[in-house]
């Protein structure tokens, strides 16, 4: 159990023009479950591998449990890791796989067996202990990989997209199991994924990464409700956040966002943007199909009945806006709908920097 500190980590791969990680700093508290989330190429796996010792940083520092490990060999860092491809040794039985780390550390055989049985029991692998991995399904092999990792009682548990090779249904059930397991063990965990649902479900905090930098690091609800940038807003949530751009106009009752036909109230705090462009961020589930003060009119283009909701694609003054309506909602294409945009759900962004503007 240990805390992890990453300070100004830089890594450029040979032959690449851009940095894989650009002076990334992050602190993970003892026992915290930190998720690194982002699209492929954002640097999350590079960061994880540097923590593991499988890649060497060009600059920066990594401290685990108060000890500098920046350049330390992986085997001396007291970590365990679950790989995306499982990396379960095909030439060893399940029991030997799980006990591998303990064996190479010289733990006596009796204790190895005891711990292996404990881990196998936790992951329902007890009937398979004597089998070879080739005789197991993908999901079972992943369990072996997880068992192998938790049996070590390591300082930090690293996971590199462990669920992405599983099929959708298995992913769902195993995700819940994993969450329960890790919270019971209380190990400091660093988890990499490109799946935002996984991130929101599992993490104590989520670090959203893009182009080698951390765009936002916060609790899942904060990252979802108050995205620090348009990228974060668009990456989290399915369907993602809507963004409407318009110009701020000064009027008698206050500022309004002119969308080229209709307009919307702009909070007083942003009146300094008079005459300049401004972007509104609003989540599809926050928009109501109802009349009301300041409601906008949008033309329905597509209605997708998704079972649990109806996903509407509407056009508001030339900009596409997705709206999440109740599953029973029905309307015809080209019908004009009244869309109510609650002010408390609005998030305002500077179009140039795409960063969140504070209005409190």
């Amino acid at each position, binding site marked *: 159990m240990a805390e992890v500190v990453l300070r100004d980590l830089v890594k450029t791969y040979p032959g690449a023009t851009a940095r894989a990680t650009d002076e990334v700093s992050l602190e993970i508290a003892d026992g915290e479950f930190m998720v690194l989330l982002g699209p492929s190429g954002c640097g999350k796996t590079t960061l994880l591998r540097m923590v593991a010792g499988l890649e060497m940083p060009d600059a920066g520092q990594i401290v685990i449990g108060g000890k500098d490990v920046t350049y330390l060999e992986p085997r001396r860092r007291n970590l365990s890791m679950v*790989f995306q491809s499982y990396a379960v*040794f095909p030439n060893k039985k399940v029991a030997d796989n799980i006990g*591998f780390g303990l064996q190479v*550390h010289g733990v006596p055989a009796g204790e190895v067996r005891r711990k292996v049985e404990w881990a196998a029991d936790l992951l329902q692998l007890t009937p398979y202990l004597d089998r070879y991995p*080739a005789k197991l399904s993908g999901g079972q092999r992943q369990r072996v990989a997880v068992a192998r990792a938790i049996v070590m009682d390591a300082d930090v548990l690293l996971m590199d997209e462990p669920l992405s090779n599983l099929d959708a249904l298995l992913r769902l059930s195993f995700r819940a199991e994993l969450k329960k397991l890790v919270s019971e063990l209380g190990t400091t965990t660093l988890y990499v994924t490109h799946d935002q649902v996984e991130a929101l479900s599992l993490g104590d905090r989520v670090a959203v990464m893009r182009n080698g930098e951390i765009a936002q690091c916060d609790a899942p609800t904060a990252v979802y409700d108050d995205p620090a940038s348009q990228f974060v807003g668009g990456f989290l949530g399915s369907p993602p956040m809507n963004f409407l751009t318009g110009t701020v106009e000064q009027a008698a009752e206050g500022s309004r966002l002119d969308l080229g036909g209709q307009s919307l109230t702009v909070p007083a705090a942003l009146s300094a943007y008079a005459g300049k462009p401004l972007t509104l961020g609003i989540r599809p589930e926050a928009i109501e199909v109802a009349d009301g003060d300041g409601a906008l009119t949008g033309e329905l283009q597509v209605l997708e009945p998704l079972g649990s909701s109806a996903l509407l694609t509407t056009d508001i003054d030339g900009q596409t806006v997705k709206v999440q309506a109740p599953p029973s909602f029905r309307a015809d294409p080209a019908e004009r709908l009244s869309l109510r945009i609650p002010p408390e759900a609005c998030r305002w962004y500077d179009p140039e920097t795409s960063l969140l503007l504070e209005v409190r």
Partner: protein
Amino acid sequence: MTSMRLRPPWLLLLPSIVLLVALFGWPLVQGVLEAFRDDGGFTLAHWERLFADANFWRALRNTLLLIVIVVPVQLALAIGMALLMQARPKFAGGHFYLWCIPLAISELAAGLVWLSIFDNRGYLNSLLVGLGLSENGVQWLNYENTTTMLLTVVIAEIWRATSLVFVIVVAGVQMIPREYDEAAQVFGASFWQRLRHVTLPLLGPSLQVALILRTILALQAFAVAQALTGRDFPLLVGETYEWYVNLQNPAVASAVALVVLVISLGTAVLYLRTVRQPEGAR
């Protein structure tokens, strides 16, 4: 693949089948028969003649000795070389090229190359005398020095043929997914532990291929010894050559060839049994 049919595509396969049956199948049968036949029909006379020849037993001993020494050394060396390459040192490309050159060098040329070194007036003795370690140099290739003769042939063979094993092992090592070694590292395994638990077991199939190929080829070594020692260090295939070309006796030559064949098959079966593929590993 949609273009799979169950009927063999005869047109494509026929030429190869014809060639192999005519130039391999038929001579093989002939060769086997030849050793047991003379004008009078079935006979073991050729074998009696062969077994009575002292050179045959010396050749047999030398050949087996050669294999027992050379094959394990080459295997270990090739694995070491492959691991060195995996560490990705500087100039890896240059090293690799030079390590592979012996692949294209014939037995004969290899023998001649080491002749220039082991000859009484060769480079090795020059070095020893030059350093003052010896008065007139050692007579490495003297027919009375059976140990040194064996040594020179062993070294020349190792030099010549390790590249083949090396290339097979390198291909095998590269086919092992990187994650296995990385996982072993993270979980605390030292270099030797990784070698023992991950690399070597997963190399099993490649090692099997390399062993079989190398042993069979080693059994056929003869020009190396010819170049270095002439007839002083007899080897089985050299004896075949002798019986056929110099002693004009094709029948006994065939008999020797059969001995080589039997040993080849025997060792191949041995390897297939002992270098067992790890269960469950592909």
